[in-house]
């Protein structure tokens, strides 16, 4: 699969600010800059959510299954 693109809406003021900032960086465009920032944010989130939550879920469901008589 090739890389896919979609559109998102962000306030014009923010775009203008990014435009200013992009000039001082090696990013080619606002799109590229925004993609990079979002990737960074999402990357961290994914790592955290996956680990913490699934263990919590597992404990919770274990307890429930025990109450329902499945695990003894």
């Amino acid at each position, binding site marked *: 699969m090739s890389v896919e693109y979609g559109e998102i809406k962000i306030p014009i003021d923010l775009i203008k600010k990014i435009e200013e900032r992009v000039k001082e960086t090696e990013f080619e465009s606002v799109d590229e800059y925004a993609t990079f920032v979002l990737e960074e944010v999402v990357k961290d989130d994914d790592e955290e959510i996956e680990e913490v939550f699934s263990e919590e879920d597992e404990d919770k469901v274990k307890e429930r*299954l025990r109450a329902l008589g499945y695990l003894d």
Partner: protein
Amino acid sequence: MIVVLAIDALEHTLVEGFNCKNLMQEFHGKTDISEFSEPRTMVLWSSFMTGKNMEEEVMALGDEGMWHTKFDIKNTFFDQFKDPKIIDLPGFNYIREQHDKERILLKQFFDAQSEDEKKSIRTEYNNHAFEHHRKIKQEFIDALNEDYDFLLGYFSIADVIGHLNFGNRAMMKMIYKDMDEIAETIKNNYIVLSDHGMDKIGMFGDHSNYGFWSSSVKDFGNPKITDFAEIIKENQQVK
């Protein structure tokens, strides 16, 4: 022939969400199981077939013992029929080796330490459940062509798979659609009934505190699971 499609853990919101027309039929709704302390599979089906709240009796057998509950046909409404066929129903003729193994694998899954180990146990657990499902499906479809006056097919797949995979909506959809196709093959009037539904806990599933019913004949409102013995008996007299 009166047909009951008994589906463990069939969740009301998913039946609607996946637009399973044959499971929904003309009338459908939730059952009221609030009289029970927990939505336990064995307790609920036992109460269904006897028409009485069997919580105390079943629970007295202990967490392990309750899975081997076996009511005599004389104590159930099946006794009203001349030639009933019941497939794999908990508390009646639940296939012990099959379901014992499900619980053993479930326990192993939660005891396992590594992700890899868990993954491989889950695969074994799922495959074990699917293999059983295919057998039950065939037995049920064959029985539809026989001359029984009552047929009850119990399907555990949504519950068993749901416990370890309910967070995987695509997988659950395939199972619900398969159950919907099974319902489609029934040419007689039938009732769909579940003991309880299912709630999502991350990737897992927990029993929800209401069941599901549907009928092509009548709106039952918000019935109790113990009402169905009477409902089905009446249905038989109408015929």
